[in-house]
C-alpha cells in the first residue's frame, strides 16, 4: 500500500462521511459546511488525478462562490434554528432503500463492464494542467466558451427578475 492509495482512502472516507453528515444533519448551516468539506475532498481527488486546473476551479467556484451563496440565502431566511417538521418515518426508510438499490444496481453493472480492472493514471500526466486545457478551450471549444458567457448573462438577468419585489 503506497502513499497514493493511502491518500485515496483518506479522501474517499472524508468525502463519503461528510456527504452522509450533509444529508442527515438537522441544521441547514451545518449541511452547507459539510458539503464544503465534501467539495474540498473532491478537489483533493482532482489533485491526486493531476487535474490541477479543475481542482482550483472546483474550490473557487463550488466551495467559494456557490456555497457562500447558499449560506447567504440560509442566513437571509433565518432558517438555522427552525427544525424541520415531523415527517413520515416510512418515507425516509423507503428513500434510503431506493437509493441503496440504485447503488447496488450500478455497482453490480460494473461486474461485466469493459472498464473493469482498467487503470487510471494518477499523479502523472499533463492534460489537466492549465496550459493544455487553456489551449484547447480557446481553440476547439471557443464557441461554447463564448456561448456560456451569454448563459451567464441570462442567468444574471433571470435571477434579478425572479428575485425582484413586485
Amino acid at each position, binding site marked *: 500500500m503506497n502513499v497514493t492509495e493511502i491518500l485515496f482512502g483518506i479522501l474517499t472516507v472524508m468525502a463519503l462521511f461528510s456527504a452522509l453528515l450533509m444529508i442527515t444533519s438537522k441544521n441547514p448551516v451545518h449541511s452547507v459546511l459539510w458539503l464544503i468539506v465534501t467539495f474540498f475532498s473532491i478537489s483533493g481527488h482532482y489533485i491526486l488525478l493531476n487535474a490541477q486546473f479543475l481542482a482550483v476551479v472546483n474550490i473557487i467556484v463550488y466551495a467559494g462562490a456557490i456555497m457562500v451563496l447558499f449560506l447567504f440565502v440560509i442566513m437571509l431566511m433565518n432558517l438555522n434554528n427552525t427544525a424541520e417538521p415531523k415527517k413520515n418515518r416510512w418515507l425516509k426508510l423507503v428513500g434510503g432503500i431506493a437509493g441503496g438499490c*440504485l447503488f447496488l444496481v450500478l455497482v453490480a453493472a460494473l461486474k461485466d463492464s469493459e*472498464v473493469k480492472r482498467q487503470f487510471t*493514471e494518477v499523479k502523472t500526466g499533463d492534460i489537466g494542467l492549465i496550459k493544455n486545457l487553456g489551449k484547447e478551450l480557446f481553440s476547439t471549444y471557443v464557441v461554447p466558451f463564448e456561448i456560456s458567457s451569454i448563459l451567464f448573462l441570462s442567468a444574471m438577468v433571470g435571477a434579478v427578475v425572479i428575485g425582484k419585489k413586485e
Partner: protein
Amino acid sequence: MFIDYYIILSVALFCIGIVGVLTRRNAIIIFMCVELMLNAVNLLLVAFSKMHHLTPPKKELAAVAGTDGQIFVFFIMVVAAAEVSVGLAIIVMMYRNIHSVDVNFLNRLKH
C-alpha cells in the same frame, strides 16, 4: 489506481445525493444534494479522462487524449453556477410567498 474505485466512489456519492433528495423536505438541502450529484459526475468524468493514457489510440494523440473530458467538467461547472443563481432566486421567491422552504407546501399542482 483501478478505475473501479473511482466508479464506486462516484456512484456512492451520487446515491447519497439521491437519498438526500428523496428524504429531505427542505428545498435548499434538496438543491445542495443536486449539487453533490453534479460533483459526483464531475469526479467520474475526470477519472475517465485519465484512463486511456497508458494505452492511447494513436501515438500523436497520447499527449492530449482525455482533454475533452476535463473541458466537459469545466462546462458542467459553468452551467451549475448559472443554475444555482436562478434556483436560489426561485427559492427566495418561494420563501417570500409562502414563508417556508418546505417542499410539502408546494403541492398546489396536485389539486
